[in-house]
């Protein structure tokens, strides 16, 4: 499912911006990878919802962005994740990594992390296969 979406997005990127810079295209491909991953995961997962929200916000800003807004959104303002009680201190880093992690309690954070890892690894495998198939 996510392979389909990802490849579709890839072909779209290829079609639309064959001449744009490598950086721009790589960012778009990364955006497409995360989007297809989150889309495939569905609405039932916290991280997929948060990830889609983040992607929409960023792409909307980028789409409508002028020079000024681009300068504004470029420096990413990290909202401080306050250390919570009853969980290890490293949980903060995990919250930053997993999309939507700041709002979860530790138990569901672990749950979401597990699912996120699974989707991420499958997405990485897919991309590796695509690259392998293309370059072969």
């Amino acid at each position, binding site marked *: *499912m*996510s392979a*389909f*979406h990802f*490849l*579709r*997005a*890839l*072909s*779209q*990127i*290829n*079609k*639309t*911006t*064959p001449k744009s810079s*490598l950086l721009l*295209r*790589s960012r*778009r*491909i*990364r955006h*497409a*990878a995360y*989007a297809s991953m989150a*889309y*495939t995961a*569905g609405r039932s997962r916290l991280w997929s919802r948060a990830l*889609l929200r983040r*992607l*929409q916000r960023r*792409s909307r800003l980028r789409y409508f962005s002028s020079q000024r807004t681009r300068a504004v959104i470029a420096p990413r303002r990290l909202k401080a994740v306050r250390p919570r009680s009853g969980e*290890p201190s*490293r*949980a903060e880093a*995990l919250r930053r*990594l997993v999309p939507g992690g700041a709002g979860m309690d530790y*138990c569901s954070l*672990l749950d979401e992390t*597990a*699912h*996120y*890892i*699974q*989707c991420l*690894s*499958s*997405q*990485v*495998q*897919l*991309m*590796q*296969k*695509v690259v*392998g*198939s*293309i*370059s*072969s």
Partner: protein
Amino acid sequence: MDINEKDKFGLEKTEDHPNYHSLGMPADWPIGNPSMGLVSAPPMGSSPCPSVSMVESFAPSLWIPSTHAQNSGFCDNNVQSSTAASNSLPIGKPVPRPLRLDMGWNPSDSSPKGSGIFLQTGTGVLPPGLSHFPTDSAFIERAARFSCFNGGNLGSMMNTFSAPESLSPYSNTPKGVPGAQIQKSEMNTTEVHMDASLPIDHVSSSRSPMKEPRDKRTSHGAGVSSNESGEPEFSGDGQEEAPNLASAAVDSSSTGLAAKKRKRPCQDMESDQVQGGGLQPSVETAKNNVDTKQKPEQNSSTMATIKSNGKQAKDSSDAPKEDYVHVRARRGQATNSHSLAERVRREKISERMKLLQDLVPGCSKVTGKAVMLDEIINYVQSLQRQVEFLSMKLAAVNPRVDFNVEGLLSKDLLQSRGGPSPAIGFSPDMIHPQLHPSPHGLVQVGMSGIVNPSDALRRAINAQHTSMNGYKEPVPQIPNAWDEELHNVMQMNFGTNPPLNTHELNDKPRERFTM
């Protein structure tokens, strides 16, 4: 009511089951209500209080059995007041009030039988599990016994509960409250399986009400005999109960504690009281939900057992209604609801950590949560870096290969999983045209570059499907909302490009033909 809201809020905190509060509350309410109805049903005409108030007033009423005689005088007052303002009535009353409150129900009974009435009517009204609810004589005895224990603890209980309540003038009289209140609280614990929210209203009003929530929380059911053991437990719970009152822990722990206590009776209370014997079957059923053996802590053991007897019936009837897991304290572990909830939470966390350990490669040897957490963080970071790197690589490689057909193929592969032949049949058609920018040329060129990759793609897609399915995540049917959302996301990424259609791919392959 504020108290009720707090309880509900606390219930929501349960980690175990988010539906705790939704289940616990409703589940508890009916239970409380029947018991309320027990008192009020016969006499209810006099005080048509709403269920909440009824429950609240009922709670104190349970305490009364021993002090029934004195309360008879109060009853009349209560009846009038109860009829007047049901809601505010139970809460606002001073310490002696609770006696009145429940007496208020009694007058409707038309006889100050006190505990006997409660018990008997309750028996009729209580859920089936409690049908064998103990009768009053033993109950009264236990209430008397129970009162001795509560004196020291009630004060602390009161203080904790009075904090949120503005109505509690009695917070400063921890020990002053007569044993009657202790008895009352005991009664409450044994009889009423109510949500913590229910007694909260009473808490401020008197010590016994304060004890009540705890009692109710910890021991549902009729284990009067467990009064003594219950008291120290209650006191211990009192402190934490205020903040945790509504917590899910209440429900789970109460159920758990109740289950815990119920188990005790089975083990210890065989010979104890009549109630224990009657409740044994319910204990057994309740035990099924729980898997722990508990070690009584100090006096709580006997108390718990007795109480659990009463509560078992209720809990066993509750068990089918509630989804959450009944937890029991294990042997040698603390048995208050707070630590029970903590234990449940810890177990959940360790279970999730084990899952993660399986997911993250090379973590089977790692022991300890801290190191494991570091490994997980490193793995997630490495995966994200890999995505970035691969996207760069794809961007670099992309111009060389036409992805249109790949997308098309993948779509065909995905859609016709049961029928690979159409996809295969499609390919030869694509290959057919010549190698020039004609509608089919694009496809053919793409195909030539993809003949090998198509298998790789198929494999990749299948692998991905299996890996996804391995996680038991159902392959979602693409809802329209999601489809639109994805389109939005993708379109925003690509600017003003129209949504990609496979039809477009087929019909207009001549666009942007790239070699």
